[in-house]
């Protein structure tokens, strides 16, 4: 923590000068000349006093940050309480930040019924609200909200054709004649290409299959965005805009806590909900019940029933990313 140079072995600092006057060991009161060793000693003391006085504990957390992945329980506890304090101050309301770990014997999976989805985008906006994404800033220069789900409109005649799909459709009513809709979000790959390219290992796959990001450790290089074949990751180009009245106070340390400028974020299957037994927000909002979620290892889960009885496919199967997000046809 000390910001001074480490203590050095004593070296002769006074070079005998045969021509000049001999150095004296005795100094007067007004004499400010110091030896190098004395100087470093004094700076260390002054610096430690200064830093102790100037830094509150919260800003110290940012300074001594360590990786989320390597934190032990106590470090996590400290981080959580400091985050809770910080958010409470910022949003002026009580915020709960959790760090619920992955449960034993759970492997999350998702299934989406393409024959049901009507493309109403309820999921997109429910996700934004639940996960505290950056909203369009009415005052600033940042009008592009961050959305983790993108609903693609495609022609029924052409089938799944990503090249000719559009997310910008906006008719009076959906579904439109001759069209079908395919929401795309993070596929929570079993073999995720995004985590492999991260130069600082700020993103990884959790034991229950959720791919998460350490927002403090992310350096914003966006390699992961390039690596993701599904375009599922989003980057905070501007300072995220999150009004206090729109904050969801139920947070997870690897999920929906407010993000920083210059970091990448993505769908976490609503880790703050799913790790506590609840369905993700997009599942609960879907008006047609097209979205299914559950434990792949539970033979009685909806997911297993879909996989065993329906026509299922995964997106870009040939890339061997092995998504845990399945598309199926309920009819």
């Amino acid at each position: 923590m000390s910001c001074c140079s480490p203590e050095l072995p004593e070296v002769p600092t006074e070079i005998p000068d045969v021509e000049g006057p001999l150095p004296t060991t005795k100094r007067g009161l007004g004499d400010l000349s110091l030896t190098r060793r004395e100087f470093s000693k004094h700076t260390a003391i002054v610096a430690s006093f200064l830093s102790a006085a100037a830094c509150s504990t919260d800003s110290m957390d940012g300074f001594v940050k360590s990786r989320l992945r390597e934190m032990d329980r106590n470090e996590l506890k400290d981080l959580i309480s400091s985050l809770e304090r910080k958010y409470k101050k910022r949003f002026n309301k009580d915020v709960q930040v959790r760090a619920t770990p992955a449960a034993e014997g759970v492997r999350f999976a998702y299934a989406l019924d393409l024959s049901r989805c009507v493309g109403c985008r309820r999921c997109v906006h429910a996700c934004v609200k639940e996960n505290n994404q950056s909203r369009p800033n009415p005052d600033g220069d940042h009008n592009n909200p961050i959305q983790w789900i993108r609903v693609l409109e495609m022609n029924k005649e052409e089938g799944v054709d990503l090249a000719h799909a559009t997310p910008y459709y906006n008719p009076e009513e959906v579904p439109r004649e001759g069209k079908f809709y395919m929401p795309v979000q993070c596929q929570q790959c079993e073999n995720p290409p995004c985590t492999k390219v991260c130069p600082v290992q700020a993103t990884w796959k959790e034991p229950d299959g959720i791919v998460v990001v350490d927002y403090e450790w992310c350096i914003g290089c966006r390699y992961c965005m390039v690596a993701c074949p599904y375009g599922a990751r989003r980057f905070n180009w501007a300072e995220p805009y999150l009004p206090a009245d729109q904050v969801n106070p139920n947070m997870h340390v690897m999920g929906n806590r407010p993000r920083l400028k210059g970091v990448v974020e993505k769908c976490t299957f609503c880790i703050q909900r799913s790790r506590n037994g609840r369905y993700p927000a997009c599942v609960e909002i879907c008006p047609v019940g097209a979205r299914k979620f559950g434990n792949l290892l539970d033979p009685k889960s909806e997911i297993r029933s879909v996989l065993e009885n329906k026509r299922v496919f995964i997106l870009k199967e040939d890339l061997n990313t092995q998504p845990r997000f399945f598309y199926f046809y309920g009819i």
Partner: protein
Amino acid sequence: MDARFLRIIMQFALAFGLAAFSIALTTGCDPAPAKASHKAAVDEADPVHADKANLPPAELGLPPNPLNMPNAASQTFPVPKPPISNEMWPCSSCHDSPEEVNRTRRVLKEEHTNIVLHHDEENRWCLDCHDATNRDVLHLASGVTITFDESYRLCGQCHGDKYRDWKVGVHGKRTGSWSGEKQYLLCVHCHSPHSPHFKPLKPEAPPVHPDQIR
């Protein structure tokens, strides 16, 4: 001599092997006891699936109907209140004299004029689902009456495939907990029973087009 002795031994061995095999078959040895215990654990953790054990008594005097089989119809589901407005309920507050029921199939011109049947209207009408003698219940094709909370059984008579999917959570919507207690929706929460086609919706705002990003 040696060859005959060997043959006898072989016959004994064969007979013994066969006997052991048949015993194993009849006693039904469990090849995966670990799996069974895991199943029990899941049952305990999941009340929705676990309540298969508490089956109500079988409906007597009826032919075996697949929809009335214990694992299907008798399994109860935690459904919310059926979408009937409080002014309309109970039906018996108006339909209070079962002896005066007009059973003639007709278009209603005095009451319930807002209901236009678009649901196999050529072959069906009100009293095919609503019970003539007690309007507060529905009845199945078998004549068994059911409450409005169990209307999925009625729908399931024709839409068996959807009923099957609904029971396992593949058709329809569930909310609550993926690992525990769930709330279901009845068929009629999404599909009007009189006109079941899903109504189109106004989509929410699209993402900002790249041309418009500031």
